[in-house]
């Protein structure tokens, strides 16, 4: 199992690092195809990993059940018959004075041993809890595996990007991406809506080495259910419970408010556009598609620099993640956006294969540049574009996994049980009151440094009591 998990950390995994996988495919397409056929990019959901998982499960069951029977019988049985030759035991001592069987029985009993008097000897055993702990531990591992499997089945997680002021209504259509477990059913989604009122991002402005490091992200939201409306806060590490799930904050960025008027002066697009951050200083890329523009469709690839500065090469970059001196630039395309073909398109990418670059680097006209409140004319009488305001967006994950709590409970039981199992020592002690001599003997499961001393103590205590 451990070995099987290794490739998952060597090769990028689709679940954790989809870009890494894409990169792999573009750099080494042949090798990638081979690796992919072995499911090495999806190790943890692969057929062979599941097979190992099931094998582990079966072997655990196979181990635990027979041992449970043995242990159950051991718990009910009397301590073993006193061996004939106690001298063979790892610890063997000869008593120095006569004692009674009754004294031996009492002392051992008081020390928590399970005791049986057999003829002229007492047989005692202690530490059954070791095996009990061990079994509970292995059963808990089984329970963890079950909880992971079943919980994963009913689980779901959905992602939604929400701009300040926007509201999200909890149904399947509202999610940008949704990954249900195999047993998910739509009624699990309970009705509520969530509005992002304000999203505050705090950066370090004080410490030179640390300038621009994010300190906190705080999303102020309003959650409305059929019964009530309440205010809440989602922060990193502090998910907000909503009906039937938790809401997590997983990403952030800017959403400049943009209005595009077409060549005929009609508003062809207006609203906030989600720009995806590209670096720590929030240089971001956004795509604006204006299919309703007349006479021609317009597409724009736009860059946003919250605190802009010009590099020597003439290119722009952002040097601070907060909008101190924000600038938008636009590369403008015209032609067919390809939205009518019925193929679903990624809203964050512009397919320029049927389009012509009319403004931008290496284009007839320079890229457009706008600061907040400004507007500019698009080339060739295509219309105008204006930068009306700046909002932030939050990437929210809504996730539900009913298995989690059970995994947690059984993990803690397992932990507790393993501590007991490892710390309890199983020991057998015998006292035989023979005619010539009195023998004391001890045996432990595994090695036990203290056995000698414990047998000595028991001997002295029994002799003390008989005196």
């Amino acid at each position: 199992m451990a070995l099987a998990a290794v490739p998952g950390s060597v090769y990028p995994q689709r679940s954790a690092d989809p870009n890494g996988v894409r990169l792999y495919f573009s750099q080494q397409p042949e090798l990638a195809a081979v690796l992919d056929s072995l499911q090495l990019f999806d190790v943890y959901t692969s057929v062979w990993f599941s097979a190992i998982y099931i094998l582990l499960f079966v072997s655990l069951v196979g181990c635990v059940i027979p041992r449970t029977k043995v242990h159950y019988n051991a718990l009910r049985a009397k301590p073993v018959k006193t061996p004939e030759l106690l001298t063979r035991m790892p610890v063997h001592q000869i008593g120095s004075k006569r004692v009674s069987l009754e004294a031996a029985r009492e002392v051992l009993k008081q020390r928590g041993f399970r005791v049986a008097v057999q003829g002229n000897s007492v047989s005692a055993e202690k530490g059954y809890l070791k095996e009990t702990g061990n079994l509970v531990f292995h059963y808990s591992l089984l329970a963890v595996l079950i909880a992971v499997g079943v919980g994963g089945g009913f689980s779901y997680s959905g992602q939604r990007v929400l701009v300040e002021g926007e509201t999200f209504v909890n149904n399947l259509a509202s999610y940008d991406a949704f990954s249900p477990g195999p047993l998910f059913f739509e009624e699990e989604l309970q009705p509520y809506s969530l509005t992002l009122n304000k999203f505050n991002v705090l950066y370090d402005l004080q410490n030179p080495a640390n300038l621009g490091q994010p300190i906190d992200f705080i999303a102020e939201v309003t959650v409305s259910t059929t019964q009530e409306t309440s205010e809440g806060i989602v922060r990193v590490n502090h998910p907000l419970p909503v009906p039937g799930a938790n809401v997590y904050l997983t990403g952030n960025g800017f959403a400049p408010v943009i209005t595009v008027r077409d060549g005929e002066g009609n508003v062809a697009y207006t609203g906030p556009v989600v720009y995806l951050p590209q670096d720590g200083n929030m240089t971001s890329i956004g795509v604006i598609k204006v299919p309703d523009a007349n006479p021609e469709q317009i597409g724009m690839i736009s860059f946003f620099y919250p605190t802009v500065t010009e590099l020597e090469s003439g290119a722009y970059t952002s040097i601070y993640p907060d909008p101190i001196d924000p600038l938008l630039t636009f590369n403008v395309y015209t032609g067919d956006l390809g939205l009518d073909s019925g193929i679903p398109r990624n809203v964050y990418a512009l397919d320029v294969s049927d389009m012509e670059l009319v403004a931008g680097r290496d284009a007839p006209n320079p890229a457009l540049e706008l600061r907040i409140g400004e507007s500019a004319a698009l080339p060739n009488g295509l219309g105008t574009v204006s930068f009306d305001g700046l909002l932030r967006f939050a990437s929210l994950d809504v996730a539900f996994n009913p298995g989690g709590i059970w995994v947690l409970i059984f993990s803690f039981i397992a932990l507790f049980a393993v501590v007991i199992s490892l710390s309890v020592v199983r020991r057998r002690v015998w006292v035989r009151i023979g005619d010539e001599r009195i023998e004391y003997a001890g045996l432990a499961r595994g090695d036990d440094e203290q056995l000698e001393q414990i047998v000595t103590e028991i001997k002295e205590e029994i002799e003390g009591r008989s005196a």
Partner: protein
Amino acid sequence: MNIVLNEELSQISLLFVSAAMGFLSVALLLFAFQLAKLKDDPTETRFEKVGFWVLGVATLVLAVGVFLRGIAANRVPWANMYEFAISSALMILTIYLMSLKVKGIGSVATFVTGFTLVTLFAAVSLFYVEVKTIMPALQSYWLVIHVVVAIMAVGFFAIAAGFHIFYLIKDAGWGGVIMSRMPDLKQLERIAYRFNMVGFVSWSFTLIAGAIWAERAWHRYWGWDTKEVWTFIIWVVYAGYLHAMATRGWSGRRAAWLGLIGFGAVIFNFVIVNLFFKGLHVYSGL
């Protein structure tokens, strides 16, 4: 929110860490002399005694260094590789000095001292970063719990690894007279087992606490992130070790190797995974 970082204080902390390295070097020399002396006179323990005093001083000085780093960064001092390394070194030394009552523990003094010295050296020369705040995903009390216990586990595993190494050397018949004056094989094995046992329990807890924290920060308790995978691998290897110890015929050399493989994975998890693999946990700060 007002966080004040203090890089100058961190430099002072670095001085303490360096001084601790000096004391460790002296202790290492003394322990080495002790080993050499064992050859002529098995009852001679003067070097060892002084060595432990010097080791104690090194630990105190290092503790000051780690503490100052925490003050300088205004948070717990284990949020990047440098800090994790110095805190681990401190933890190993502390656990070791607190275990001095265990019979035969002195035999791995050279290993423990040498190992922490190398750790600190790597920390100071390779991993040092200026004090920074940590990203919001790491700002959680689970950071404190999860990492403290992880460092503890590493400490116990490290000391056990020392015993595994001496076990294997002795078992192979190397080291001549010096090794013959060491505790016997059975005892080396037993001490290693004790430390690994505590290490395993701590590591299990680390795993659970990590999952709870992941659930809070990233919406899933387990995501097969690189670091999670390696944490799991280490856990399974040590579980395998415990099984080996419980199975007759599997203890001894094979168990010692399993323990060493486990500790190798711990170091791998720390150095290689942090530096070269991609994942949410990558926090080297480099």
